[in-house]
C-alpha cells in the first residue's frame, strides 16, 4: 500500500517544525521562508488563510486543467453516446423529431459534463495531495495536534537542498516562531 504512506526523506530527520501564534505572523513568516529560497516546505493551519498560497509562492494548481479536460470529455462522450444510440443502435421516432435531435441531448450532455468536472475536481484534488495518507511524521509532534484547533505551523522538510537542522531552527526562530522542534522520520 505504497500510496497510503508518505514519501519520506532518506535522512534521520523528517524536518523542522516551527509554531506561530497567529495567522498574521504565520503569513509574514511564509513570505520570508519563500524569499529565503526554500522549496520543500509547507504551512499548516486550522482554517484556510486568504492569500497564503501567494505568501508561500505556490504556483497555480494544475487541477483546473484536469477539471476542464474531464468536463469537456464528459460532455463530448455524452453527446456521442446519445447520437450513437439514437441514430445507430436503436433508432426510434419520438414525437416526429429527427433521430439526431441535438436539442434533446443537450441536458444530458450538460449534466455529464458537470459530472466529469466534479469527479475530476474531487479525485484530482486527492491525487495531487497524495490522499488518502494514513500516517505522517508530523503526527509524532504533540504540539502539532493543535493544528486542527488554534495552532499555526511551518515545516521545512529535510530533502530541501537548503536544509540543515541547526540553521533551519535558527531561521524559524528569527522569523517569529514561538516554538521550534525537530521532527524525526
Amino acid at each position, binding site marked *: 500500500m505504497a500510496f497510503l504512506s508518505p514519501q519520506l526523506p532518506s535522512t534521520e530527520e523528517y524536518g523542522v517544525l516551527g509554531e506561530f501564534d497567529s495567522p498574521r505572523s504565520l503569513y509574514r513568516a511564509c513570505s520570508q521562508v519563500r524569499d529565503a529560497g526554500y522549496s520543500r516546505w509547507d504551512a499548516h493551519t486550522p482554517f484556510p488563510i*486568504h*492569500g*497564503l*498560497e*501567494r505568501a508561500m509562492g505556490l504556483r*497555480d494548481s494544475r487541477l483546473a486543467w484536469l477539471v*476542464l479536460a474531464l468536463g469537456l470529455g464528459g460532455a463530448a462522450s455524452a453527446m456521442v453516446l446519445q447520437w450513437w444510440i439514437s441514430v445507430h443502435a436503436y433508432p426510434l421516432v419520438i*414525437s*416526429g423529431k429527427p433521430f439526431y435531435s441535438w*436539442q*434533446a441531448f*443537450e*441536458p444530458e450532455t450538460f449534466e455529464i459534463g458537470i459530472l466529469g468536472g466534479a469527479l475530476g475536481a474531487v479525485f484530482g484534488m486527492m491525487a495531487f495531495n497524495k490522499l488518502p495518507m494514513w500516517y505522517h511524521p508530523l503526527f509524532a509532534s504533540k504540539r502539532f495536534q493543535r493544528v486542527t484547533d488554534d495552532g499555526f505551523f511551518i515545516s521545512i522538510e529535510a530533502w530541501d537542498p537548503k536544509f540543515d537542522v541547526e540553521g533551519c531552527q535558527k531561521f524559524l526562530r528569527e522569523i517569529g516562531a514561538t516554538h521550534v522542534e525537530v521532527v524525526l522520520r
Partner: protein
Amino acid sequence: MPDLNQAGLTITPGTWLYRLPWIGLGIGLAGMAGSAVLAQGHLQEFLHAWLVAFLFFLSIALGGLFFVLVLFATKAGWGVSIRRLAENAMATLPIFALLFLPIAWGAGQLFSWWEGPGEDALLALKEPYLNAGFFLARAAAYFIVWSAIALWFASRSARQDDSGQHSITRRLQAASGPCLILYAFTVTFASIDWIMALDPHWYSTMFGVYFFSGCLVGIFAFLVLVMGILQEAGYVGQVIHKGHYHNLGMLLYAFMVFWAYIAFSQYFLIWYANIPEETIWYLHRMHGTWSNLSLILAVGHFGVPFFFLMSRVIKEKPRLLMAGAAWMLLMHLADIYWLVMPNVYAHGPHFGILDVAALAAVGGVFMGAFGWALRRRALIPVKDPRLPESLQLDHA
C-alpha cells in the same frame, strides 16, 4: 480609514471625462437630428431601431440598479470601491422616461394590438392587459419605481460621502430587500410589455428572466470598460485592483453562462412541445438570414466567451478583460436586436444608418447623463464603512 489621495478620486476639470456630459449631449442631439431626418417615410423602422437602442442602454442602467441593490442586500464588502460607478449607471434611469416618449408616441407602429383587438380572438382575451391605457400606466409605474429607488440610493450614498454615518449603510441594507422584489416585478413586466408584446400571440414564461440576464451581462461588461478607461486616464489607481477586475470578470462570465442557460431552456421547451403559437417566434428567427444571427448569438454570446473569459489569467489583465467586455456588449446589442427586429424585417437583419442614428441618440444621452453623475461626486464612496475591506481585496 486608509489615507486616500483625493486627486485620483474626482474627475479633473478640463479633461475630456469632465466634458463627457456635453460630449454625450452633442452625440445625442446629432443622433436625434439624424433620426428625425432618416425617419421620414420609414417611421416603423425608425421606431423599432429606437426601441433597440432604448432597451440596450436601459438594460445597462437596470443592471446597475440590480448590482447596487445586491451589494447592499448581501452586505458585500469587496464591491464598495466599484459601487459608485454602478450607482452612476443607475442614476441615469429617470432620463429613460424621456427617451421612452417616442415609443409611447409611436406605439401604434410597434404594437399590432394598440388600436384594439379587432377580429383576433386571442387578442380579445388579452385585451384587459394589452390595451393602450394600461400599457402607458404600467410604463409610468416602472419609471416611477426605478427612478425612486435609484435616486434614493444614489442620494443617500452621496450623503455618506460627507457625513460618513454608518446608519446610512444600515438603512440602505434594510431597504434593499423589498426594493429587489419591486425590481423583479417591474423588470419582468417591462420586458413583457416592451419586447414580448411586439409579437402578441407569442408568450414565454421565461422571458422576464431572459431579459434580466441580458441586463446583468450589460452592466458587468459596462463596468469593466468604465473601470479600465478611468484607470487608463489616471483615476482610481489605488482603490481598484486586480481583484476587482477578477470579480467583475467572474460575474460577467457567470451571467453570460446564465444567459445561455436561460436562452437554451426557453428554446428547448418550445422546441420540444412543438406548439405552433409558441414555435412561430423561433420560426421567424430561423427564417432567411435571421438564422445566421441566431447562430452568431449562440457562438458569439456563449461559445467564444465561454472559453475566452474562462481563465483567471485573462480576467486579471485589464486590457484583455476589457476586450472581452466590449465583445459581450456588442453581443448583448445583437441579442436585443434579435429580439425586436424580426418584427419589422421578416427576411433578415437590416442594420443600417437608421439604427446607428438611434443608438447615437439614446447612447449619447445615456453617456451624457452618466458623465454628469460621474463628475458630480467622488468616484468611490469615500466614507463607506466597508471601504477598507474593498481596498484590501486581493486574490492570490
